């Protein structure tokens, strides 16, 4: 079945899965971050294949650009760039693999059995800024506005948590002097 697929799709998919695997297995957090960024690039390429040009760009800007930089920033701030994570025992890895694998197996097997397909009705230019913008600012204008609440809440929350208080500082200095 795989040989019938176009080469770009196969290569991209292969790269995506490979880099995703590297994300979860790499011991060094910074390597994970970089691998994740690479995964995002491949996913963006998928978007291009799928005619979703706007999303491809947004994905790069938001995920690879903003979110991952935030991650890197925190990693550096907390000085976690070295391999600090204790290795888990083998059976734990097996348990995790079995759980995740069984989920994967169940879903794919179910699709394999039913072999259903979605009605194919591609429309040219649906993924362009022009088309999406029209939809976003007409039908989806309410959720779009309401994301304002989400961001305001996230901002206030992040400030609330990030702000240092005297009590917290005292606690830390005490702990440090004890330790």
């Amino acid at each position, binding site marked *: 079945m795989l040989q019938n697929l176009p080469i770009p799709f196969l290569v991209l998919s292969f790269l995506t899965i490979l880099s995703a695997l590297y994300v979860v297995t790499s011991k060094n957090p910074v390597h994970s971050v970089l691998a994740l960024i690479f995964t995002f690039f491949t996913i963006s390429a998928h978007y291009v294949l799928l005619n979703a040009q706007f999303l491809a760009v947004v994905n790069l800007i938001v995920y690879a650009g903003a979110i991952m930089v935030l991650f890197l920033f925190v990693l550096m701030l907390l000085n976690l760039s070295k391999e600090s994570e204790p290795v888990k025992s083998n059976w734990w890895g097996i348990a995790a693999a079995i759980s995740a694998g069984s989920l994967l197996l169940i*879903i794919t097997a*179910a*699709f394999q*059995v*039913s072999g*259903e397909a*979605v*009605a194919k009705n591609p429309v040219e230019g649906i993924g362009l800024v022009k088309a999406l913008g029209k939809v976003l600012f007409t*039908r*989806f*204008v*309410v*959720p779009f506005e*309401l*994301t304002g*609440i*989400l961001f*305001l*809440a*996230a901002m*206030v*929350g*992040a*400030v*609330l*948590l990030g*702000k240092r*208080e005297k*009590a*917290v500082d005292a*606690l830390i200095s005490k702990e440090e002097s004890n330790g």
Partner: protein
Amino acid sequence: MIALFVTFFSAAVLLFLGLNKRESSYSLFAALALFVSAGLSWACSANLVSFHGLESWVPANMMQFGKEQHLFAALLAFIVGFILLMFRKNEVIGNDQLGLMMFSLCGAYMMVSYQHLVMLFLGIEVLSIPLFVLAGANKSNLASNEASLKYFLMGAFSTGIFLLGTAFIYGGTGSLELEMMGIKPSFMHAMQGMPLPVLINAGIVLMSVGLLFKVAAAPFHFWAPDVYEGSPNRTTLYMATVVKIAAFVAFYRFLSTFGGIADAWKGWMSVLGAITILWGNLAALNQASVKRTLAFSSIAHAGYLVMFLLMADGTNTWILWFYGLAYAMASLLVFSIANQVSFQGERGFAAFDGLSKKSPVAAIALAVGVLSMAGIPVSAGFNAKFYLFSFAWQHMPWLVGVGLLGSAISVGYYFKFFKHAFMNQPSNDNPVVDRGWLMLLGGLILLLGALPWAVLNVIY
């Protein structure tokens, strides 16, 4: 919609007044704004006022503003108003926390009135993200930190599962609108006995998992006891009431859409309900901490409400409304008293020792609250359970049996409250304030217990 506007803008005003100003008058202002939201919503539902101009701005395929939605918005605003009111004195919180709680409430409004899965998703996130923060608002308290991180990680994880389900549903039905989903061909075929497409089937399961996580039903409840215990009391109460009610309404709306293929989800849903009921009640038996006991009790209540999901056909939301009201008022009473007598850090039931001698009013209010939670007549809780069980009986008699068994078990731990409040000698002298409000709530519970139908007729 009006509730969302009033709540959001008063929260914004509070934030402008100063991010971290701590004065109990701000809580009072916030509570007032919430009561105004509740009142206006209720007035909308009773057709006393109309904000048609505002609501027509929202496309009909995004949010729905019918009578029920207004009533649920009113209920949620009312509960949060009371939470802020009852907790305003013990530990004054800054405007940022007040604002966050009100933003979170906006998410709950979205969840009760969504018509489009985008709105549901945004609602869940607007509800949750401030809560992640609020759970950790006691920044110097390690338990609070832990609660926050646990809640966040598991919440984000469940969001992932929820979204996968949404994607499947989208692929299966071809739409994200509740009304459109139900008329897509693949769906209609399934209703006529053809096999249900895997996409829809798996989508329902995965989305349900996401929502079951929010309502804390087994086996997706593990976060609840830990997070409830670690969070500040106010936040715990908010999670146990508002989040639960909003998530159940959202769940109900979602499942009513798939009412035609109820056979596909009724079976496992009822099994989960039974497990939740038993798990919650049994695990609560041995808890030493008051908050953990209440957390497991709230899990058990989620189990009872799963019964309500099983009769999702769009006609009986009033049961959930009444149940939510009864449960929230009882929780308010118990949590508020627990908060007042134990704020020195006593987590166990010893905090209640000798309450009947220190403050008979508070002890009686506590008794009323606990009896209502346990579902003993004459209390609002009994009527709520009675309505729920007698309607569910026609759909799932065995689950009602499990529910009754669960409420029989629950007496075992609700009894601890009595024992400590009425039989033990006082071990601390933490004062109980706000007795007027406690009495008001207790009286309301009894009124709803004695004359439920009269009250429902007036309000609903």
